């Protein structure tokens, strides 16, 4: 055990002998996490999107569109003309322009609707601002229901629509049995009788909503039950970014430790250690444990930076958080050992190691949240330790879950680390006996 202690002390001393290098191991992941966290901030944290509205319809539908768009808190609407809108979007100064055509009200008339004509809007998008455009499209879909609903809430409009429908019934009954055709005619006739008195009234006699559009389904946030998490404030992009970047940079740190191991093999230091009473297994274990210990320390300090700067907080289980970090560090130690034994030259280690770390980081969702990846990549990500690390850390940070949620990812990371370490031991043993 004393040999193990001195091997670990040696590696930690070497790590801290380069103070600037040690600082970079902590600062780099924090800096990149801050950048990525700001990029992947959830929409709720973003300001209103500026859009242009070209309203060419002077009828009720054009007015309804303009009113509904202006009511939105997440949109900043500027009404302009067609020429200027095209120019601004074309030059990238506005993400999107919405055109309400001159015949919008006409197309939303009972006559046109009974013919099955679809009312249309046209939109002009800046190809470089697809994210904003997608959000605006969602808003437009929601507002469409409201605008159409507003028209249908007018009893005289609905009455005319039913009357138009009755008139066209005979034109569209091909293939329908006479009995069904007769029943449908009766339904429309009854509906007409029902609505007719309301259409004649100046105001509706019952507390109808102002428009039928307000009956559109309202989406409210359902709070998670307390047992699901202590404090849950929604997706926290910085928490995800810190998890991903800590994991990726620890893997890069693992590669640096592999290089140190390789250098010690090449300059004879490793050979000399082998002549001491320290066993071969202890040498490997020492390297593994020291790499893990430094990785754990770096991760804790980096998370500390995240806590101070952008409120990366462990809302869930603190033991679960520590357990995940320890398992992740163990995995990094095993990875370092494996790479140092798989690669026999510094050049191979650098190129192959960088490729592996980048692929694991990207596919494992360390760079971008895994939900933006394809299904295939998400499935592939399950075979990447980075995926388990980011999921485990997400569970106990922004998701605010209990220890049990971190246990699975921690066990997976532990298994990955152990597999890496065993492979390293096998290669090393084989080499020392050849």
């Amino acid at each position, binding site marked *: 055990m004393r040999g193990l202690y001195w091997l670990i002390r040696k590696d930690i*001393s070497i790590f801290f002998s380069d103070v600037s290098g040690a600082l970079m191991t902590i600062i780099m992941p924090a800096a990149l996490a801050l950048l990525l966290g700001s990029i992947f901030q959830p929409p709720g944290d973003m300001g209103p999107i500026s859009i242009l509205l070209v309203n060419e319809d002077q009828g009720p539908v054009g007015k309804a569109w303009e009113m509904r768009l202006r009511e939105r808190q997440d949109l900043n609407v500027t009404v302009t003309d067609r020429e200027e809108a095209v120019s601004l979007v074309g030059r990238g100064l506005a993400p999107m322009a919405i055109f309400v055509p001159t015949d919008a009200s006409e197309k939303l008339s009972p006559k046109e609707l009974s013919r099955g004509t679809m009312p249309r809007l046209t939109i002009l998008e800046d190809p470089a601002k697809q994210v904003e455009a997608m959000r605006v499209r969602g808003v437009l879909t929601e507002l469409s229901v409201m605008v159409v609903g507003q028209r249908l809430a007018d009893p005289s409009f609905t009455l005319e629509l039913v009357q138009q429908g009755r008139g066209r019934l005979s034109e569209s009954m091909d293939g329908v049995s006479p009995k069904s055709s007769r029943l449908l005619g009766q339904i429309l006739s009854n509906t007409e009788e029902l609505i007719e008195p309301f259409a004649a009234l100046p105001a509706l006699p019952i507390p109808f909503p102002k428009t039928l559009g307000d009956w559109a389904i309202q989406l409210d946030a359902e709070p998670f039950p307390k047992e699901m998490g202590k404090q849950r404030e929604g997706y926290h992009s910085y928490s995800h970014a810190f998890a991903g970047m800590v994991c990726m940079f620890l893997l890069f740190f693992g590669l640096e430790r592999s290089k140190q191991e390789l250098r010690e093999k090449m300059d004879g230091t490793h050979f000399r250690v082998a002549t001491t*009473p320290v066993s071969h297994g202890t040498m490997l274990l020492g390297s593994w444990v020291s790499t893990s210990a430094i990785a754990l320390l770096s991760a804790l300090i980096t998370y500390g930076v995240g806590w101070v700067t952008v409120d990366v907080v462990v809302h869930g289980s603190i033991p679960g958080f520590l357990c995940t970090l320890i398992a992740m560090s163990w995995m990094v130690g095993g990875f370092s050992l494996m790479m140092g034994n798989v690669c026999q030259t510094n050049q191979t280690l650098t190129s192959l190691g960088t490729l592996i770390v980048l692929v694991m980081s990207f596919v494992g969702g360390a760079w971008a949240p895994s939900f933006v990846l394809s299904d295939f990549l998400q499935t592939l990500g399950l075979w990447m330790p980075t995926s388990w690390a980011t999921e485990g850390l997400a569970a106990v940070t922004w998701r605010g879950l209990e220890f049990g949620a971190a246990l699975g990812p921690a066990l997976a990371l532990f298994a990955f680390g152990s597999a890496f370490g065993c492979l390293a031991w096998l290669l090393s043993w084989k080499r020392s006996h050849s």
Partner: protein
Amino acid sequence: MFEVENLTVYRGDKAVVHGLSFTVSEGSIVGLLGPNGAGKTTAICGLLGLLRSSSDRLSLNDVDLRDHPKERRARLGYVPQAVAMYPELSVVENLKIWGGLYGIGDQRIQKRVEFAIELAGLQERGKDRVHALSGGMKRRLNLAIGLLHDPDVLICDEPTTGVDAESRRAIYRALHEMKEAGKHVLYTTHYFKEVEDLCDRVVILQEGKMVLQDSLDALLSAKEQGENTSIAVQTSLSSQELEEAMTQAGIPFSQTSLPKPSLEEVFLKVTQNKGVEP
């Protein structure tokens, strides 16, 4: 007495050193010579237990070391050809770490570190990082690390390669002190002069086999019955004039001496001129 008998060392399944036998007495230095590829390093690896080996005997003062790898490593010291230490760390940190790896206890380590620093002549440089030391200083420290745990047997693999005269003298001095302290030293080098200056016995390896083993004195006097004799006379005469004068005068030769062959000559002869580097 450090005794090695019929040592065979393998790399994989192939025997690279065959049947090497020698002894190193207490307080003596044995030189291990051989051309490049002769198997010197492999033999050292076998002795240190880093490669699979077999032997009829590998003992130190009648204690069998074969079945006790930890004991073997604790009692053998090794000074590699390369400067094998941690350049990022200070001299003292290096010595403490190596001392720890050799199993020196906390009570003893400070004294051994002081001893090693004095041995290496680095009293003023203890806090300096190793990469800031000169080549000679590093070599001296390299030797000091090998002696840190006070081994009974010291195996030196060309410890003076590329050092200046001062450091070389310091290393020689340290080895002589080891010898005087009754330690056993096995020494490989490229420099024949070093063997002549330091060693008591010489073992010559070639193609993994021992081709010669004898005391240095015996090797260097082996040519006394040879063909190269000379007469040393202090005179201003030319050699021909001297010969004629001595013959004519019937002067008996009162003082004759035989030049000692150099070790290099002996080496080249036994290795059949196959190489000049041990």
